[in-house]
């Protein structure tokens, strides 16, 4: 396969787009290495996502759907493509943008500006929730306390809950996130490396949490990150939409131009373990582009006994959120932060709230006293 592609490269100028055979090709498609023109790229990009939505029955007509919008390339393109497909194929969906402010100076500020612009552009209502409002701590505060080693755990746990709470506030039926093929492939690898068989069985599902409060799905499951980066940079009608979009266009184009695949990295991320897997996948993609989809396929095909899949679902005693333990993870982490024991909730549970009931019954009063912030359950829904 690669040999024939190499040949066509040399004949560059005389070749035509592989798909339409009419226009000049402008790029080599990352997923398939096909040489295609701009129009065909949009078409095939959008059509593939439409097929994923249809084949996997992701939506029902009339549903209220919240798009988890971080302001990064994935969620911006997701917002655009979803609203476009909703219109084009008449999905009949009620779309919203939902954004979370983790309180990371210099990173999230720019992203949120993008999200606000998206609201203007696509006329999608926007809701912003901050960690400060929800938990009483910003990520900057947390990092000041715990350093750079386990901060991603905190952010991830809090963000997941924040999205669910926001979705509940807006009374939406479904949450949509911009997780792409690279993300899912990374997660499969990480779960193998960490020994988490239960998560391994769930992480390739396109829809998760169907039996929970808000199901969430990932329409970009088979979409390559590289293609998501390319897509807006080619799009001219972003310019046509509104003046504010010019700023957006350059904003995204700048990311693309940098040619650094990971220019949207969170400033705290260099120490995250996920970096190992990410580098590996980047190298793998260079050797064999379809390997990303192959990892996802392997993840789907793993023979995992159904008994290992779901831990029992209950509710958190402290805040009422969904949890498989006595306290939900966010409450455990918050408790640790507020008591100045930042390691609580990190690593395997030995003692602590969920492991040792007796310790907690000894001093319930002081636990309440030491809580400086609002409890997670302060938002009614």
């Amino acid at each position, binding site marked *: *396969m690669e040999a024939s592609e190499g040949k066509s490269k040399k004949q560059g100028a005389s070749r035509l787009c592989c798909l339409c055979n009419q226009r000049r090709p402008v790029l080599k498609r990352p997923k398939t290495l096909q040489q295609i023109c701009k129009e065909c790229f949009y078409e095939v990009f959008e059509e593939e996502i439409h097929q994923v939505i249809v084949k996997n029955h992701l939506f029902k007509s009339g549903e209220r759907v919240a798009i988890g919008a971080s302001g990064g390339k994935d969620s911006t393109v997701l917002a655009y493509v979803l609203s476009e497909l909703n219109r084009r194929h008449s999905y009949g969906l009620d779309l919203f943008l939902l954004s979370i402010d983790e309180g990371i100076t210099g990173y999230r500020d720019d992203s949120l500006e993008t999200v606000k612009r998206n609201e203007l552009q696509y006329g999608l209502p926007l809701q912003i929730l901050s960690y400060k409002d929800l938990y009483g701590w910003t990520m900057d505060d947390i990092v000041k306390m715990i350093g750079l080693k386990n901060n991603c755990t905190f952010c991830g746990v809090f963000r997941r809950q924040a999205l669910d709470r926001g979705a509940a506030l807006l009374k939406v039926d479904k949450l949509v996130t911009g997780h792409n093929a690279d993300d899912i492939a990374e997660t499969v690898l990480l*779960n193998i490396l*960490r020994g988490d068989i239960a998560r*391994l069985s769930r992480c390739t599902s396109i829809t998760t949490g169907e039996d929970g409060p808000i199901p969430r799905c990932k329409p970009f499951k088979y979409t390559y990150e590289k293609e998501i980066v390319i897509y807006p940079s080619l799009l001219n009608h972003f310019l046509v939409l509104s003046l504010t979009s010019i700023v957006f266009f350059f904003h995204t184009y700048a990311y693309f131009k940098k040619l650094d695949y990971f220019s949207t990295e969170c400033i705290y991320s260099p120490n995250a373990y996920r970096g190992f897997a990410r580098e590996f996948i980047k190298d793998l993609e260079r050797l064999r582009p379809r390997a990303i989809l192959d990892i996802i396929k*392997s*993840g789907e*095909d793993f023979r995992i006994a159904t008994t290992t899949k779901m831990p029992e679902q209950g509710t958190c005693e402290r805040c009422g959120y969904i949890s498989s333990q006595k306290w939900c993870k966010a409450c455990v982490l918050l408790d640790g932060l507020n008591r100045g024991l930042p390691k609580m909730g990190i690593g395997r549970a030995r003692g602590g709230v969920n492991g040792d009931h007796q310790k907690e019954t000894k001093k319930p009063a002081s636990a309440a006293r030491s809580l400086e912030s609002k409890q997670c359950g302060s938002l009614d829904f």
Partner: protein
Amino acid sequence: MACNSSGCESGGCYGREKDNGCKVVDVKETVRLCVKCKSNEPMTFGDGGSDDGRFCAECFRSNVYGKFRLAVTSHAMITPSDNVLVAFSGGSSSRVALQFVHELQVKALKNYEASRDRSLPVFGVGVAFVDESAAYPSLSGGMSDAIAWVRSTVLSLSPPEKDLHVVPIESVFGSDSVEARDRLVKLLDSVSDETGKEDLLLHLKMLSLQKVASENGYNRLVVGSCTSRLASHVLTATVKGRGYSLSADIQHVDARWKVPIVLPLRDCVWQEITRLCHLDGLKTVELARHPQSGINDLVSSFVALLQEENPSRECTIVRTAAKLTPFYFNKIPETDDSCVPMATQRRLKKFNLKYDGSMTTEAFCPICNGPLNGSDSSEDESDALYDACCSSCRFQILPQEPSSLDHFGSLLPHHMISQVKHHQKFDSQTYLREKIKDCLLLDDEEAV
């Protein structure tokens, strides 16, 4: 243990509580003793690995040998009536496997000679060395020396005597060496993907081992794969879309083949093996290792990187993969037990260590012998070989142009092609219910 701060559990000191004057005195600092037997001085290998300087030589050795023996007995890998062929590459892992199997055999012989009724016979051991120089011409220079070394090594491991079989990899094509070599080269040249080429050679290597084993009356094939090798395999399989068949490859027993494969060193890590070779003075020969390129090489480097960051990563990877559901053939098959001693038969039945060999519910890819997942089946039944293969082999081994498939099929060894015809028959019978709409019934063959 000497901590006097109240409420402090040993090993559970938090940072703050330590500042309250908790003193932990390490008694062992002055006199270092083996942590297991607490009587001998611990060995230091100085190789920068973990667990250095914890065990004495004897405890270390018995630890590794113990893992080997546990694997053998708990999976009925080698029983008294067996004839075992050890695949020997000259590397550390297979050298240790050979050594341990030899020691097991020596012990069995001692017991046999000491027993009055001579009820338990001693299992036979042979050694097979695959000569890959036809595939990797760079190896041919040192090959004759390597073979001579292998021969002398095997000779030194007697009594009991062991036959040595030097197997050229092209022997899968037949006995005419010139024609076979030629065919091998043609086959390899028609595979354009580097990783596919490497993997195809691995499959051919296994076929050649199977061939020599069954032709010489062996009923077990011992392969020296260790935890580290399996960890790389887990990742390469994942990355190639072979998630379904992965659990078949990493168990202790793999009875898909005519001669079941056993992995007695599965629970030992590379570090233990190299240390043991060093300790016991076991010599190895590293043939100018054909450079791995492509995906296999990338994964090896990745695993090495992970090991640096956390020395127990390989074990975690294999442990995760071990949680996947194995297949029915990952146990020793039930065969005609007339020559197996009663005691052994009883034991095997008691621990459910065998399965009924006549039960086959899986179809296998003719090239890699991986069990096929339902999702692997192709939409159009255009080419028998294409349909029969798994999606991974279709991509990396089979030629991309449909017109070249026939020619490619003619280059494959007979054993692989015969599987294709078998698959076709199997397919129409067993998968009928699932593919009832798409399946074209070509003709009404024997109804089951």
